[in-house]
């Protein structure tokens, strides 16, 4: 309901246009505008505004509790926002706008919208009762209604792409953490998303397995996939990100190219955080 309030109070077009003018001439794939979210009276997102252009990689950094994971989960409507706007590919997430009124989407419409937004979780969340290949093909077969044969071929191709072609018939419990996470990436890719969200994808991994997952993510970035990555891997952010955003206390403290935010931070809070993780 707050969403409709802010819709009437702040015309959606003008700040959108200013963002576009400031950043790039292309239309952003993801744009967030003054996004607010509270849990039981505690405001965890206090007006986040961001834009990601097609093909860009954005890394969200920040101390735990800064709201970066919550923001990521708002992008595919796993969490409802209390205020502001999030749109992906020009479409409002979780809401439909007809004339000047905003309507809540029903679960099936939200599901349709989520097909274009892939997500990779910290704890992998693979379906334990399915093999690696079945994990990847379940949604294309069941949701997209692609033929089993085609989905299988595509699934094997994706497994090959993440370097696990020989493990198609293994169950998640039989795979290492790094292998599970790479299957999870392949599962997200199988729906041909325009945008991929990563929620601390390497935080639950043994240190020696982190590299394999980051390699896959670097390849994806190089192939032009639009990605938003919540991570603590400063090295990855420096190498792969186009934009680095530092969040703290539910606000964006600093954002810009990695060379600026990571090597020459303007804010004291950013500097303190970077000193503690590097």
């Amino acid at each position, binding site marked *: 309901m707050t969403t409709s309030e802010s819709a009437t109070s702040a015309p959606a077009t003008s700040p959108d246009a200013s963002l576009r003018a400031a950043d790039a001439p292309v239309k952003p794939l993801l744009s967030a505008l003054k996004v607010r979210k509270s849990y039981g009276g505690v405001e965890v997102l206090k007006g986040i505004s961001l834009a990601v252009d097609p093909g860009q990689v954005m890394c969200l950094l920040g101390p735990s509790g800064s709201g970066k994971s919550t923001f990521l989960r708002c992008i595919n409507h796993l969490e409802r926002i209390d205020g502001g706007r999030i749109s992906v590919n020009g479409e409002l997430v979780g809401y439909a706008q007809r004339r000047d009124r905003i309507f809540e989407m029903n679960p099936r419409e939200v599901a349709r919208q*989520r*097909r274009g937004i892939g*997500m990779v979780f910290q704890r992998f*969340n693979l379906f*334990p009762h399915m*093999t690696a290949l079945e994990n990847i093909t379940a949604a294309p077969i069941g949701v997209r209604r692609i033929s089993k044969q085609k989905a299988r071929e595509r699934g094997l191709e994706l497994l090959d792409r993440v370097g696990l072609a020989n493990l198609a018939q293994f169950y998640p419990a*039989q795979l290492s953490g790094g292998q599970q996470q790479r299957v999870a990436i392949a599962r997200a890719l*199988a729906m041909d998303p325009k945008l991929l969200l990563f929620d601390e994808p390497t935080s639950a991994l043994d240190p020696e397995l982190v590299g394999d997952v980051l390699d896959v993510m670097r390849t994806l970035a190089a192939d032009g996939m639009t990605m938003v990555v919540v991570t603590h891997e400063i090295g990855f952010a420096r190498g792969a990100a186009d934009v680095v955003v530092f969040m703290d206390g539910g606000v964006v403290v600093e954002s810009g190219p990695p060379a600026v935010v990571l090597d020459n931070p303007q804010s004291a809070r950013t500097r303190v955080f970077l000193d503690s993780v590097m």
Partner: protein
Amino acid sequence: MTLTSPVRTGQASEVDPDDIVAVPLRHPWRWFLAVFLLIGFVSLGISLWQNDNINHPTITEFIFNPRILSGVVLTVLLTVVAMLVSTFLGVLLAVMRLSNNPVMNTLAWLYVWAFRGTPLLIQIVFWGYLGLLYAQISLGIPFTDFTIFSVDTNTLIPALTAGLLALTLNQAAYSAEIVRSGMLSVDEGQYEAAYSVGMSPVFTLFKVVLPQAMRVIIPPMGNETISMLKNTSLLSVIAVLELYTVATQISSQNLRQVELLLVVSCWYLFLTSILSIPQYYLERYYGRGKARTLPPTPFQRVRALLRHTPINVRRTESQDAS
């Protein structure tokens, strides 16, 4: 063998000096208890066997009696139909109970409250005597005289249907709670992962949540199936011709109550033993992906045992010794 005779480190060169070589702890009381119980059971068996009040030929005469067998068939049929329908209803109720829809939620809660809160025996009698409450059952538009059809209650619901209805509706309340507990055991991350690849709530339920919940649901449902098989005997109060009713009818003619109770008990024991076989295989099927390797089935175990011919075993033993 080596354990019973402690070997000192200096004497045997092939024994690692770090190995603990100790006399195993003895358990004399286990032997005492086992012998004591064995004597008790044997004497109980002998006293039953020699009891003049039990007519053994009656047991052998009636165990495969056609009337008893028809009772067995009906008992099994009642169990299977009631379990299948009640499981379906139970899943429906559990989903309703967990849904965000307050109407569905309350309806499911009320159902479970009513059917779990009254004794099964009373429910059976109630359905059996429904004709006393409503002599006619009609379908029409409420608050008008318009009726599509009207039928005598006792014609529509004979004793068998009433019994089946009572067992099914009562069991659905219990099954609903079991299914609900299974669904609650599925990690929240599974829903999120399913939603993130664009699955709808219904698709997520059938493809992701229920298959995982089954692992938790099946053991208590096995329990419920065994209970159901035995609870069918309660239908004797409304004269459904299942196993126990048939047995009481026979014993009221030949006055061999104890013998027929033994016949019936043998059949119930046999049937409940059979029921544990499908449960084992269902548990195994839904447990896939949970363990890294599935345990072998009993058949696989037997096959593995046969592969270990005595010659093979002896060879491995001699290899161990050397």
